[in-house]
């Protein structure tokens, strides 16, 4: 479980405050206008930003003061998830050992993760020689070998076409269910939230305005900001 207790953070002019809970094994989508603090929320959980006040708890442990690598968290970004000069296998292996010295058992784990995301045949290519979707799969495979209970996704598939995006989402969803991961995913695509997320949070001006079961949130009539954000999308009859 991820808990943010009265977490305060200031970015330029905007004062943010987060008070929320993401239960263990849940898949939460985070939607909302750009600049509203969606990425900041993930950065606070991952430890890339330090709150001015309040604390972040993961599975009951206060991680507020821990550096990113000591938190039980993996994160996948929209872009630049791989080092261009290392091949796909090495990029995944970094998730286990920063010095890339692995024993046979760990090597097998890297191979298995690459096979699981469908990159078994491409493992000795460089990132520049594979497609954008395949590069994102490398990040998923790395999260697999890192085997941390929390997975954060920051618009991970925004640069991919609809079919690929759906494939990737299915992959992450399967991984989440098989391992009981707690997933928080920032997205701009309502259909991503509906396809994968049990819960969806609507975030605006540095606050989580609502965090409800996905279907309930998209049907909500009491959130005027959400209606404006979704626009025509919420009224397919128009």
């Amino acid at each position, binding site marked *: 479980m991820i808990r943010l207790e009265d977490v305060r953070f200031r970015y330029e002019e905007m004062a943010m405050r987060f008070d929320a809970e993401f239960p263990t094994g849940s898949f939460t989508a985070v939607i909302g206008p750009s600049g509203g603090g969606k990425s900041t929320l993930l950065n606070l959980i*991952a*430890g*890339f930003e330090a709150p001015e006040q309040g604390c972040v708890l993961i599975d009951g442990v206060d991680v507020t003061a821990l*550096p*990113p*690598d*000591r938190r039980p*968290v*993996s*994160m996948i*970004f929209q*872009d*630049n*998830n791989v*080092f*261009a*000069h*290392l091949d796909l296998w090495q990029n995944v292996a*970094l*998730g286990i050992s*920063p*010095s890339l010295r692995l024993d046979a058992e760990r090597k097998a784990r890297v191979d298995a993760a690459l096979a699981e995301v469908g990159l078994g045949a491409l493992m000795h290519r460089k990132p520049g020689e594979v497609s954008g979707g395949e590069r994102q799969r490398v990040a998923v495979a790395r999260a697999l070998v890192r085997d941390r209970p929390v997975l954060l996704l920051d618009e991970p598939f925004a640069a991919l076409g609809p079919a690929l995006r759906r494939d990737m989402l299915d992959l992450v969803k399967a991984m989440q269910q098989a391992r009981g991961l707690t997933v928080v995913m920032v997205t701009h695509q309502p259909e991503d939230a509906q396809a994968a997320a049990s819960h969806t949070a609507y975030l605006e001006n540095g606050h989580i305005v609502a965090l409800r079961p996905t279907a309930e949130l998209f049907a909500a009539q009491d959130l005027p900001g959400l209606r404006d954000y979704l626009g025509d999308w919420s009224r397919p009859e128009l």
Partner: protein
Amino acid sequence: MIAYRPSRAPGYAALALLALALAAGFLPVLRMGLEQGIAGLDPYVFRVLRFTLLQAGLSTFLSLLLGLPLARALARQSAFPGRALLLRLLNLPLALPAIVVIIGIIEVYGARGWFGGIFDIYGLQGILLAHVFFNVPLAARLILADLERIPAESWKLAAQLGLRPLAIWRLVEWPAVKSGVAGAALLIFLLCASSFAVVLTLGGGPRATTLEVAIYQSLRSDFDPQRASMLALVQLALCATLALVAQAWGGLAAGWPALRLQPKRYDGRSTTARLLDGGIVLVALLLLVPPLVALIGAGLFHINPSPLLLRALLTSLGLGAASAVLAFVVVWPLAAFAVRSGGWRKVTSIAVLASWIVPPAALATGWFISLIAHAGMTGLAAFLVIAMNALMSLPFVARVLMPALAQSAEAHDRLCLSLGLAGWSRFRLVELPVMKRAIGLSLVMALILSLGDLTAISLFGTQDFVTLPALIYRQMGSYRFDEAIGTALVLSALVLAFSTLAERWSDQR
């Protein structure tokens, strides 16, 4: 599609002028060199070549030895107080004329200086000290630009994977900087191999002379054009080789770090890292600050507003303005063609590259031989200095004008074509108002370069034709070091005023 065509005559004229200047420099040297054949390559030439390579190699090594850790320290500690000031300080040695910096170094490390006795500054040690002073900041800024291009996600990833400093260096930093380091090394080697003022003032004896300075001595002291042309051929071959290697590498075009938002870094927070980075910055400050402080401190009390100083000042400004205008007039028509046609682009880039790699002293040897046969030096000195300085500033002028001109062509060509706006009226009504900052910047850059020039004025100057750098050198040579410091301060003030102006124009583009 019908494309806009600039008028041809100025383009061909500019090209002809450039070809003439290069041919007049190159052909006599080649002829005189070939006449001597292998016999001309005597032990003296080899000794000079060996010293040139030795000092350039050592200078490059030492500059990177400090420049690389300095860049890393500045990139890793992205928010300490005074960082912005330090970055500006790193620009200073590049902006100041070499002769001015040398004065500062002598004032600090010379026999009677603040830290006198640490180095023997007349000879190899002094040459290395001066080259390191110039090139540590250059290396640091070039490499810092590469480090700052590393995407923010890489730093997040490194933090999440818990990479240690060594792993970060191996996996993130070194891959990002390695081609930049090679490019910087080549550039620094090239600059040091053709450095003139430093070697002339701090070396110059038969044991510590480089090709560039040896050419000058053969021409002006020994009057031995044969030896000069042999040395010039060797220098040409050396510089051309280095420049071609650099060109093939493609690493020289690296830009300066922009003052934009830096990606946040999560490493380097440990006490060890901070102490290490702080120590490196301190070493750099110890290297850079004392000569500059000495220059200002001592210079303020020794400005002697003699008629000679005033005349040198006016001569410097006059020559600088003339060579800036000449460089502009040559580059503009070429650039106007180059941004619109692939063929012209090739020709122009070759011409600009040629003017960059041809070492001034080698070129001067040819001009010297060509002209001395026909006329005396005196009447021509000013023209030769202007031409040489214009030629040296061509690459910089082109680098500024080309992108601006390309942008203007893109935006205005079709409208101008439909209105029949061309030639002078187009320049007056469209390019001049739209590009006035770029034009101003290119002129000021050329002016600054020629204000600091000691090479051309030494090669062609005469007793009563003196610029500020030449005056400083003369005052140094005649045991009036105090006056030299005063003159150096005047020159630096002048150059810094112009470069502040240039910086403002380049920021607002």
